[in-house]
Each structure stands twice: as structure tokens, then as C-alpha cells.
């Protein structure tokens, strides 16, 4: 068998990953570092440490941002080691009832819909499961994002025709955030893609990507199966995500998860005669984040010349955009070249906002230190708009902004869509 990930023993303990770790930077404690997590996992696997609540806490004190793996010269894929370890810890120690019910709910689309339906009775109040999923723990209730009046996917057709000549078709994976919280992202994404001449297909049977489950040590096999089947059913040129964390699930986690389930000797399932693993590979290869896609097609965008100059505009690069899609330089280039935008980068654009993983909920004190630094910089450049392409970052950023100020947190697509020339 080919070891899918570089074995832990190849960590030379050089310490370079510490430079990249936002948690280490705040705490300055080795036990919070990626290197220490690997050592702990190693100790657990050698049976020098048995599982314990503290061990679980130490390996989970992590944003799952993947920055350590990018910095590691030895090619260690921390992410998968951490995911694996979380699963083992949950297997031996169990999970809190709140997290358990969240996992139960998120693992089936029908349950998610039911959860959303119940929430509607309470009008725009954010339902508890969404609050848990996005870990709204330390955000004041009145700064919660408002619920979409109707789940976004219910408001659009499965297939939306392009404006003008059809250049191709794209499948759009909307994720839960766009579906329930941020319909503006969805509307704008469709608007831009059709403007560019693409037919947009939104498979109705897609569901939560499963990343929140995986972070909690649940394998999310059901979510993966559902999504692979939903996405594979359509012939398309590409699969677009508006959230790079969902994107990372399609691009990185599903192929890895299939490999792992196979190792456990479960037979690979067939889908339309195609082995599921091949489908997953195809999906992985086709997945692009919306901003990279727009960057590649920037020249084809036609703007309304009367759009007033917007700015100053700052950007926050989410961890999965930087580490999984490596899109930050493309996005910078895009924002710099949009005629209507006064892009003013902050020096800490790529620093973590503290929202990731199970972090911001479990370690609000550390997350706050990270966020405060970001707020300082974004205020220093007098930003009017603060853009980001991750809904968790967006919730975290707008939830922590001083509401008396006038900084708006948006997905870049909504400003871009707003400036397009409409027929």
C-alpha cells in the first residue's frame, strides 16, 4: 500500500511551521504549535500517551488553516494527520451532546432543511444549529447574519441560461452559508457567471460539504457520497465554489476520505457505472473558486462606466484560499485591476482572523487577539469595504466590527456584480 501522507517520523522538528501558525504566534507556547501536535500524535501512536481530554484539547487547539503544511519543507500534511487524530479522539472520548446533535443534523440534507424550516417560524432569528455550525459563540446576537427569507437554492432554477452566446456550463456548489445566510453571494455569483456566458447548473440535491463534521472528528462519508453523486450527475466544464472551505472539501478532502474508507476495506461504490473514486477525482480536478475563475476571465467582464469608485477596499485572504487554492496573488491582481475599485491592501491581509475550525467557539480569548489585530489594520487604512471569500471569516469579521463604524463586510463577488453593465 502506498502511504498517502508523509509519515510523521519525517518531521525533522525544525520548527519552521511555528512561523506560520497563527495560534502559536498568539500564545507563544510550544504545546499550541503544529510541531507539538505532530509529536503528540506520534506519542499517541507509539502508546507513550493514551487518549485523554487534555490530549484531545491540545490537538484541537487549531484553526485547521493548513498554513503549517504550506510552510513545512519536509512535506508533512498536518491537516490530514490532525483530522485523523480528531477522529480517533472522538472515537475514544466521545463528543459533547451539542456537537453530536449538530453532526446528526448536518449529515443529511433533509434534516438541514427541517432545521431551517423550523427556524423560519422564528422569522429571521438564526437557528441554534446554524449558530453552532458557524460558532457564533462570542458574537453579539444583534450582529448575527440575518437568515435568507427563503433558502437560496429554492429561489433559483436548476439551470440558468447565460447572457448572450453560451461558452459552456458550470456546476455551482453553493454551500450552506450562501443557501441560508448570504444569498447576495449566490445571486452575484450567478450574475457574473451568466454575464461571462456560462450556463449555471445548481444541483438541488447537494448538501453541506461536511467540513464542520470532519473538524469534529466525524468522517462525513454520507455528505461526501451525496455531493459526489449530485455533482457527478451533470456534464460541465467546471465546478464553482463561492467558499474555499467547501472547495477544499471537494478538491482535497473527498479524494483523501475515499482513499481512507477504501483502506478500511469497504468496497468502492459504483455510480452510473463509474467508480466513486474516479468521480471524486474528476470533481477535484474541476473545482475552482469563484475568484480565481473571475480573475482568469477578467478581460471579458463589461463594467458599467458610471459605477462610482468604491473604496478604500481591503481584503482578508481566508486560510483555504491561501493554502488550498493558493488564490491570494490572483485575487490581489484582480482587485487591483478592477476599474471601479480602490483596493488598499492591509499588511496583514493573509493573517488568520481566528474564525476557523472549532476555534473561535472554544478559544474566544485567542480568537479575539487575532481579530483585534486585523481590526486595527483595517481601520488604519480607512477601509469602507472589507472583502472576504469565506462565510465563516465574514461572520467573524462583521460580528466583531464596531457597528458604529461604516465598514461593510462583503464577498468580493457582490461588488463586482454590482458594477457590471446590465442590459
Amino acid at each position, binding site marked *: 500500500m502506498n502511504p498517502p501522507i508523509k509519515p510523521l517520523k519525517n518531521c525533522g522538528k525544525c520548527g519552521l511551521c511555528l512561523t506560520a501558525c497563527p495560534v502559536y504566534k498568539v500564545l507563544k507556547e510550544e504545546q499550541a504549535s503544529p510541531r507539538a501536535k505532530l*509529536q503528540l500524535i506520534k506519542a499517541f501512536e507509539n502508546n507513550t500517551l493514551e487518549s485523554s481530554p487534555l490530549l484531545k484539547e491540545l490537538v484541537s487547539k487549531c484553526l485547521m488553516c493548513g498554513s503549517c503544511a504550506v510552510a513545512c*519543507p519536509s512535506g508533512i500534511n498536518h491537516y490530514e494527520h490532525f483530522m485523523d487524530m480528531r477522529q480517533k479522539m472522538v472515537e475514544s472520548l466521545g463528543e459533547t451532546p451539542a456537537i453530536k446533535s449538530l453532526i446528526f443534523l448536518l449529515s443529511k440534507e433533509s434534516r438541514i432543511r427541517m432545521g431551517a424550516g423550523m427556524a423560519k417560524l422564528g422569522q429571521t432569528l438564526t437557528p441554534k444549529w446554524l449558530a453552532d455550525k458557524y460558532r457564533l459563540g462570542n458574537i453579539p446576537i444583534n450582529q448575527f447574519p440575518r437568515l435568507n427569507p427563503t433558502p437560496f437554492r429554492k429561489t433559483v432554477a436548476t439551470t440558468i441560461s447565460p447572457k448572450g452566446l453560451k461558452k459552456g456550463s458550470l456546476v455551482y456548489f453553493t454551500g450552506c452559508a450562501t443557501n441560508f445566510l448570504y444569498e447576495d453571494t449566490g445571486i452575484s455569483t450567478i450574475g457574473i457567471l451568466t454575464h461571462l456566458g456560462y450556463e449555471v447548473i445548481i444541483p438541488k440535491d447537494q448538501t453541506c460539504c461536511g467540513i464542520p463534521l470532519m473538524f469534529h472528528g466525524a468522517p462525513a462519508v454520507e455528505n461526501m457520497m451525496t455531493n459526489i453523486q449530485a455533482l457527478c450527475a451533470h456534464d460541465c466544464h467546471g465546478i464553482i465554489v463561492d467558499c474555499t472551505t467547501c472547495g477544499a472539501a471537494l478538491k482535497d478532502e473527498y479524494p483523501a476520505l475515499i482513499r481512507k474508507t477504501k483502506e478500511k476495506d469497504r468496497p468502492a461504490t459504483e455510480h452510473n457505472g463509474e467508480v466513486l473514486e474516479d468521480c471524486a477525482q474528476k470533481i477535484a480536478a474541476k473545482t475552482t473558486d469563484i475568484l480565481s475563475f473571475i480573475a482568469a476571465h477578467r478581460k471579458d467582464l463589461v463594467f458599467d462606466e458610471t459605477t462610482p469608485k468604491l473604496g478604500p477596499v481591503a481584503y482578508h485572504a481566508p486560510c483555504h484560499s491561501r493554502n488550498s487554492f493558493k488564490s491570494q496573488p490572483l485575487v490581489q491582481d484582480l482587485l487591483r485591476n478592477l476599474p471601479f475599485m480602490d483596493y488598499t491592501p492591509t499588511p496583514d491581509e493573509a493573517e488568520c482572523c481566528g474564525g476557523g475550525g472549532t476555534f473561535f467557539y472554544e478559544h474566544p480569548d485567542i480568537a479575539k487577539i487575532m481579530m483585534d489585530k486585523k481590526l486595527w489594520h483595517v481601520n488604519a487604512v480607512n477601509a469602507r469595504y472589507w472583502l472576504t471569500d469565506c462565510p465563516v471569516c465574514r461572520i467573524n469579521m462583521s460580528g466583531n466590527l464596531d457597528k458604529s463604524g461604516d465598514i461593510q463586510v462583503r464577498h468580493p463577488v457582490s461588488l463586482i456584480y454590482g458594477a457590471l453593465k446590465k442590459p
Partner: protein
Amino acid sequence: MTHITDEIRKQLVHIVTQKRYLDSKEELACYAYDAFWEESMPHAVIFPETADEVSRILKIAFLHKIPVTARGAGTSLCSASVPIQHGIVLCFSKMDKIVEVNTRDRYIIVQPGVINADVQKALAPFGFFYPPDPGSMNIATIGGNIAQNAGGPRCLKYGVTMDYVLGMEVVLASGEIVTFGSRNVKDVTGYKLSSLFCGSEGTLGLVTRAILKVMPKPETVQTLMVTFKDLDDTANAVSDIIGSGILPAAIELMDRFTLNAIEDSFGLGLDRTAEGTLLIEIDGIKEACEREMDKIIEHLKANNAVHIQESANDADRERLWTARRSAYGVFAKLAPDIVSEDVTVPVSRVPEMIRKIKQITKSYNLTAGVLAHAGDGNMHPMIPADRSNTEEWARVEKAFDEIFAAAADLGGTLSGEHGIGLAKARYLPLVMNQDSRNLMSRIKQAIDPAGILNPGKFV
């Protein structure tokens, strides 16, 4: 040596509060290692925040003869921060304040936990820099740099940590807080004790504040990437350049094996077929740099350089240096363990020493990469190996025995910048006679009579 009893524990916790005192086995396991392969568990980890706390902790440790090992970011390559006799690890990472930046008087005052790169960041807006640049500078702390007398590529021209420490505050094993040196670049008042503490590897006292000399940033920096068909030619070019009186900021040499390992990870488009590659950096006034550059190129050509390329811009340079700084980690990819040493020889002996390293490792049937701060004769032979393979490990050890002996033979020394720690303690007799080693022991005995500071290391 005493164990930490409940009563002692209570006293220690009282000093720093529970939050900064760790003794669960899970957390202790995270302080049993540094970048060297040896590991050993501490009994407690304490994060001091002031010199006074350090002093009170040391008083207790002194009284009860508890070993105390200082730690910064844990990037030592010679096991300096591994608590080999257990006891307390005193981790300085939270003492990370920059106390004063004063470029008019050319100094910066820092706490020991400040990261080297943060010193550079604090100085950059004023057009100044702090020359010592160890490979781990993006995470390693100044306290650790001082303890190990750290160097780096730039030290060819600028010198090592010791040359930049103007003064310090140190807590001695007894808990006494002493200061020496001053804010003055020139100061010959009394013994120059900061030099004694630089490179003492935490065996004499613990630095709680340092005054560092800083330098104005050079007007221009130019970087050359040069390839050779022959490793001998590469090394000869280095000793010719230095021999002719030119002093570049850095001359880094990589053999083919190293270069390929780096290229595998970074894909910079380096020439994989070159037997030897040099990375040469010169800095200073523009006109002077240009003249130096011409002379350097002459020497390179005379030694059959195949390809000479000047890096176009800062981003290019930064990429090359990032790759170079990652060499250690890149090697780690090749095998579970990596033995990287830093023998140093007079620069005229560099070609010979490289030949020796190649010969010796070959005779033990090992693959080795050679990476060197060649301009100052500081070699990094690196051997990827697997410690669990006892037969192979024995060969690695034998090879290093011979490499150290060869370096000593050529008038060289054991370590140019990593320090001795555990890694090289047994080789000391090669370069220091019994009387000299006795002198070190007497100094240690005088300053740390109970032997609690980093015991079990080279002294």
C-alpha cells in the same frame, strides 16, 4: 538532584500562577525536544515574564538542586534546549517585548523571547538591521541566538551574535541579577562578560534582557547564482575570492545532492546538473558593489564557472534565500532523521574539507549533502538517515567521528554556529586540550556551583 515535591511545586506556581506552570504529561511531552534528534522529558515547564520571576525560580531550583534548562523557540540543532537531566524547562517565549529601538545611538533593547525576524521588522522602517541571520531566524529567539552565539550566511562579512551584544541582564544560578556592558558601541569597562555568556548555551546564566548593536542597511544588495561542473572548482572559486581581499556579505555553497533536494521542494528552476552552486551576495555602496562584482566574476570565470546569473529583483532574492534557509527541513523529507553538523575550517582549506567529507561518507556507504557558508569555512555536511536502523546509525556516527577529526586536522573547529550541546560534547578533546577544558569547568564551577543550569551538556 531532587525531584519537584508538592511543596516546591506550590512555591513555583505561586511565582508564576498556574497558567504559566505546566506539568501534565501531555504538555511536558511538547518540551522534550528541539530540532536535534535527542529527546528527554522535563518535570515542569515554566514561562517567566520578568527577570524577577526568573530570579525567584532559580533561587528555589538552586536550593533544591533542580536542573533548569532554558528554551526559546526550540530550534537548537545541538540539543541545547533539551532537558537531558529533566527538571525545569524555563521557556522564555513569552518574554517577547522589544523594550527600546534607538537607531540614532545604534542599539535595540529586547527581552530574550523576541524573535530574530521581529527585531529585523522593528528596525527596517529606520533603515537599520541586525546582522546575525541564523537559518531559523523567522522563529528563533534572541535569547537562543545569544545562548548559541548564532551566526548565519551574512556573518561572513558582519560577524556573529557575540559581535552585536553590547550589554545584557543575566540571572545567575543563585538567583542574583547581574548586568554588564552598556548602550555604548565602545565600552572596555571591566571584563567583557557578555562575550562569555554568548555561546554559553544556558550553562552559566539566563539572559533576561539584551542590548544589541544594529547596523545601517546597505544601499544596495546584489545576488549572484553561479553553477559549476566541478565541486572542486566551486570550492576553489570561494577561496580565491576571499583570498583576493573581497568580502561579500555571504557566499553559500551547495553540492548537487543538496541543490536537487531543494529543487524538489521549491521548483525554482535551478540547474539540477550542476555539481556545485554558489549563492553570492554583496552589499554596500552601489559603485563599490559594481567594482567588487566585476572582480568576483573574474575569479568565477577563472575557476570554470558554467553559468553566472544575477538575480533580477528583491522577490527573486527572497525566494532563493527562503529555499536556502529551508535546506535543513528539505533534507528531513528524505529520511526520518537528519544529522547536520557545522564543522568549520579556514577558508583556504574548504576545497580539501569538502573532498574529505565526500570521501568519508562514501566509504561508509552514506549519502551526504554538503551545504556551506563557504566564505567563512563553515560546512554543513548533512546525512539523511534512520535512527531506528542501528547498523546504518553506527555508520553515520563513525563517519562523523572521522569528519570531526579531519576538520581538526585542517586547523578547523567543531562548530561554527550551532554550538556544542550534547551533539558534539564528546569531540571537544579534538580541539581543546585538557587544561583548556579544565578552565571551562572552573568557570562553570565558579558561576554555577550547584551545576543546575543545563546540566549534562558540554561542560
